[in-house]
């Protein structure tokens, strides 16, 4: 039809050309309208807001960071039937401007003291080793994480050398490839370092380093969307629950709420869509505490179960990019000093990324992501220059701040169900390690939801009930 019509134009008189040109556009518009009116097109007479989530979903994941998308990916991978499970990922900010994932330094290490943490990062490293087998999408480029295999180097003083040896034994037992170095070996390996005060050091030999968090997030998101996960940009403002009363063995009456609807509010609008769902996953990172308080967790009387809040709050951390042309070269590992200062190489041009966790009493204000350069001048620089003398001459070229989803209870991840909300799974509180543990945590939560228990890595030690029973499991190697 179209071919015949075009040839008609060329053969006809030029007088009629303007009329025919207009006619051509009108006919095209008519054809489009006719196609839209046919069943199977997206047109509907009712004007709907674009970007609304579906009215019904099986699993709603609150939070579109790397943990949220990893859970969505593994849920779809485990549910082998196409469209067998409808998963919706709700993310507040489409630009990811304040998300912890993209503002992270991107490091991955196995040098923890808790064996569950070591197993989580080891699994994630193996996932990233074969990432194209997992996350390759038809007709798209292969995933490139820009992984730098330089390893982590932890330094210990006299006081903490024995803790480092203990941790070394645990790490080796679980299967991480770590080596202990004495100060003289350190001096021979890294001549640019000042050994004063260092009694022992532990260097990761394999599966440790840093990578690009945005590539991992995008790879997980692209693969999950290709498998049929729905993505919605909106903010979760509340839940509609069905409440039941339950009595504990002590005779206390508790309000057990089962989530029926998740209210997702559209950006820059008052309009919200209640999404009917079976399971909700709280992977909101730094805002997980806010989501939990929407369900009344922590708002009850102090002595009861409902009075214990979710101990996850945002903590601001600064990252400074410094340029030092005489700095250490390609062999710079991700150096972590016992004073808390960390430093890693960025690129090949003499740029380094450095920072430090502030003291508990001097936590910066969390209302915004402004950078405090005084912190670098007063706290970070002299410690950095003490450890690496070349850094006495440097220039801060850039800096940014990001939030840790800090678990104030024991700085380890919280994974599991809350007794008062039987269909909300928590996967939060990783205190700076969410990125490196995300593939493994995603699989663990997917196994909890679909199989009812852990199959690959047993994370019962990280269950939420330790918060309610007040039994912390402490991790001594937090940066």
């Amino acid at each position, binding site marked *: 039809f179209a071919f015949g019509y075009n040839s008609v134009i060329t053969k006809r008189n030029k007088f009629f050309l303007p009329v025919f040109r207009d006619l051509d556009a009108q006919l095209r518009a008519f054809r489009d309208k006719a196609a839209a009116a046919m069943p199977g097109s997206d047109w509907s007479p009712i004007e709907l807001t674009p970007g609304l989530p579906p009215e019904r979903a099986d699993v709603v994941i609150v939070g579109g960071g790397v943990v949220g998308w990893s859970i969505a990916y593994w849920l779809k991978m485990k549910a082998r039937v196409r469209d067998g499970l409808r998963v919706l990922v709700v993310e507040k900010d489409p630009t990811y401007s304040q998300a912890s994932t993209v503002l992270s330094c991107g490091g991955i290490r196995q040098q923890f003291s808790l064996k569950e943490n070591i197993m989580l990062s080891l699994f994630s490293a193996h996932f990233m080793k074969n990432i194209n*087998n997992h996350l390759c999408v038809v007709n798209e480029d*292969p995933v490139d994480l820009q992984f730098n295999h*330089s390893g982590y180097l932890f330094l210990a003083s006299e006081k903490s050398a024995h803790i480092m040896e203990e941790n070394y034994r645990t790490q080796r037992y679980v299967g991480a490839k770590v080596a202990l170095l004495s100060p003289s070996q350190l001096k021979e390996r890294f001549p640019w370092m000042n050994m004063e005060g260092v009694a022992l050091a532990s260097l990761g030999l394999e599966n440790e*380093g840093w990578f690009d968090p945005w590539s991992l997030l995008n790879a997980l998101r692209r693969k999950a969307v290709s498998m049929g996960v729905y993505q919605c940009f909106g903010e979760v403002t509340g839940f509609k629950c069905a409440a039941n009363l339950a009595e504990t063995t002590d005779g206390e009456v508790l309000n057990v709420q089962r989530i029926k609807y998740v209210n997702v509010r559209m950006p820059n609008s008052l309009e919200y869509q209640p999404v009917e769902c079976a399971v909700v996953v709280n992977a909101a990172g730094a805002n997980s505490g806010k989501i939990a308080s929407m369900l009344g967790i922590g708002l009850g009387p102090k002595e009861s179960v409902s009075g214990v809040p979710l101990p996850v709050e945002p903590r601001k951390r600064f990252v400074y990019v410094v340029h030092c042309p005489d700095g250490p070269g390609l062999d710079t590992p991700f150096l972590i000093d016992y004073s808390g200062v960390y430093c890693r190489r960025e690129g090949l041009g003499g740029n380094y990324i450095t920072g430090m966790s502030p003291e508990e009493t001097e936590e910066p204000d969390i209302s915004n992501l402004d950078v405090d350069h005084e912190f670098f001048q007063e706290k970070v620089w002299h410690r950095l220059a003490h450890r690496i003398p070349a850094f006495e001459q440097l220039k801060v070229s850039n800096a940014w701040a990001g939030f840790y989803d800090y678990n104030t209870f024991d700085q380890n991840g919280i994974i599991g169900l809350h007794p008062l909300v039987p269909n909300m799974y928590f996967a939060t509180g990783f205190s700076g390690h969410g990125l490196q543990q995300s593939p493994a945590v995603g699989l663990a939560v997917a196994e909890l939801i679909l199989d009812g228990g852990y199959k690959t890595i047993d994370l019962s030690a990280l269950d939420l009930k330790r918060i309610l029973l007040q039994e912390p499991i402490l991790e001594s190697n937090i940066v």
Partner: protein
Amino acid sequence: MSQAMKRCSAHTCAAVAVRRALSSGAATPSVYTRFLLKLSHYFYDVENILDWNNWLRSQGVIHKNRLFGYAQKNFGNNVAAAYYILTLRGSFRFAGQSEWFRPDSRGRFSYDFMSTPDAKIEEVDLSGTLINHNGLENLVKQNKLQTLSLRGCPEVDDWFLARLHVFGESLVELDLSHCSRITVGGLAALQNLRKLERLDISGLPRLQNPGLVRILLEEMLPHCQVSGAEYEQGLIQPDSQEQTEGHHEASTHTGLRHL
């Protein structure tokens, strides 16, 4: 859209595989490959056939790099490592012996290496084989390995280099030329090979600044001689600067000739 999702699979598609092969520096694909690729954009059947082809190839790589556990348990680590290298069509030489064990052009080899189960392997030539980081599991116990040649291995990537730390006390020579997947992040892992004396990094397409990488590697491994990259590679040379440099060179040459 649901039809498109039905076609999704976990393995690399034909177009991506060809793009990867092209980026590895191979010549432009043959008319036949280009024709098949064009057809696969129009017909699902052709695309599926090409996908199966790539899936079979990747399964072949996985099969080649499996752990030779039976051989390790019954004949010892050295014999298992030797058997593994020969099945991959590589060659090796035991420590203390001077003759190399090689397969012939058809891939057949003699089983003489089984007569010396205690001899450790000293030199290995795995150029052009399909070894990857999983296959290295068969060789980790060879702590006397001195020379390793991985010239033109398509499956050797940064994770493979990170696993080479097990040879940190013994490896003296490493040849990584023409391995298309290696980047600077993997070369940074070579800091664990403290005894390395010769390193070849020629023909690595993913290195943007080979000259700079050579300088950084020489700084990182002071006893090592890095070959395959000239210091000027990767430098941006404006045309006028080249001409004046050419004049300078010509004048110095003539100057020297007169001496």
